[in-house]
């Protein structure tokens, strides 16, 4: 079948050009000075030194990680019970609920994020309801709360679907066995269900943390200028100021941090199960 193996060759060329080369270009830009010709490359570590010696950039980095971690934790807190309840339902009802959770994901994220603006704004729905009951107006738009809410709204379906997938794959007889052997429901949950659903939680974390830490339109639409995240920083250096070298360095730092945290998550997961 040597004939068919040739079918993949054009694709190998394709990914080398369109996937590998761009990644290498980011590294190249990040490690060179600006205004270089192709022949007179000047390598430098200045872009990285600039990032780590400026308090502003460090704060943006910490802020992004903080928001991403909070978002991920909230998604687990909301998503786990939801997935658990759905897995306890009969198959037909469960399937309908999963469909209902999947549907909004098909709608453009920007469109869904945009829908929150009218709800959260100072004279928006929530404040109108609060005002009706005599409460004071709460400022929600352009706050950290709005940014996290927007992220949870967009990303929690990923968490629910992942956890639900691992819960529904679980062998139900294990739970029965545990009950028969005299474990109470809490014990069964902690010793059987929770550990078996961990792979789902881990892939859910990946699917939430990754877009949350690099997101730039959610903080922009709902946070205004109040929450500057690392994605916004990258956008600014590429679109507004045009300093591609520094922008590349920031993206590289972000990519490395993300890879490292993914590695840690997997490690913790494995350690926990051993």
């Amino acid at each position, binding site marked *: *079948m040597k*004939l*068919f*193996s040739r*079918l*993949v*060759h*054009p*694709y190998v060329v*394709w*990914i*080398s050009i*369109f*996937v590998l*080369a*761009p*990644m290498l*270009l*980011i590294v190249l*830009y990040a490690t060179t000075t600006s205004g270089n010709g192709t022949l007179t490359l000047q390598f430098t570590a200045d872009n990285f030194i600039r990032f780590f010696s400026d308090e502003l950039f460090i704060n943006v980095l910490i802020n992004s990680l903080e928001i991403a971690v909070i978002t991920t934790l909230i998604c687990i807190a909301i998503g786990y019970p*939801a997935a658990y*309840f*759905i897995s*306890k*339902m009969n198959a037909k009802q469960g399937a309908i*609920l999963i*469909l*209902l*959770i999947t*549907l*909004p994901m*098909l*709608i*453009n994220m*920007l*469109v*869904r994020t*945009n*829908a929150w603006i*009218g*709800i959260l*704004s100072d004279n*928006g729905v929530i404040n109108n309801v609060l005002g009706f009951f005599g409460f004071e107006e709460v400022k929600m738009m352009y706050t950290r709360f709005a940014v996290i809410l927007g992220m949870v*709204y967009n990303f929690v*379906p990923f968490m629910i679907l992942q956890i639900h997938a691992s819960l529904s794959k679980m062998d139900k007889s294990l739970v029965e066995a545990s009950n028969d052997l005299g474990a109470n429901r809490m014990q069964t949950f902690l010793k059987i269900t929770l550990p078996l659903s961990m792979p789902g939680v881990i892939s859910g974390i990946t699917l939430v943390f*990754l*877009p949350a830490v*690099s997101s730039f*339109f959610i903080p922009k*639409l709902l946070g205004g200028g109040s929450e500057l995240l690392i*994605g916004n920083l*990258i*956008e600014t250096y590429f*679109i507004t100021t045009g300093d*591609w070298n520094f*922008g*590349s360095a920031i*993206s590289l730092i972000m990519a490395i941090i*993300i890879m490292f945290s*993914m590695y840690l998550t997997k490690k913790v997961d494995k350690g926990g199960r051993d």
Partner: protein
Amino acid sequence: MKSKLNLRKVYLTILMLFFYLPILYMIIFSFNSSKSLTKFTGFSLEWYESLFTNSTMIEAIYYTIIIAVIATVVSTIVGTLACIGLSKSRKILKRFVEQVNQLPILNPEIVTAIGLMLFFASLNIEKGFLTLLLSHIVFCIPYVMLSVAPRIRKLDPNLLDAAMDLGASPSYALVKVIVPQLMPGIIAGALIAFTMSFDDFVISYFVTGNGVNNISIMVYTMSKRVNPTINALSTLIVVTIAMVMFVYYIFDKKSKVEKK
């Protein structure tokens, strides 16, 4: 037991409200007669009218659809062929493709986006329709391959030999024997590719130029000012998706009944 059941219902109901109230809100305010996003002043179709008279908007819808269609067709064909080829190729090549394929999936979108932007810039390719289309094909193919690959693994390896023993040429065997077996995976891959392309914002935002915009970029640039036209556009998208899903659901049910 009764109270437990209610807790579950209440929780899931609140969750569904959380998911759907913003969408409902958006739909309602797309019919608002004033510009306000917070006070409903009366019913009107004003924003739908301005949507269809706004030429940049129509253009964005056009580009979104045309790019999604071309990217889907190309990435489905290339992805499927690459997948078939990959299953017959050497281990090193297999590993290489699998690893590189992971890059656009595991990397944050913004990294893929600026990589492509730098790439096009260093080749002096002007940003516009071509760069947008190429980028969409780039990030769609790995998803097609992800959904075709499991089907290939389930394929009977003797199938191809049988077809060729019976006198089929390799290309005939490919089209008439292999591809039909992979069809469910290919269709699922094409659907994923289409929605990925249709909804993409981050990558499109960095690689497009020359006034070629898609719907997401329009929403992003317009949302800086209060503009209910976005609500009208979003409502149309939601209704379209709901209709497609409904048709798909009916179709799916019918085919299942027939199979029984």
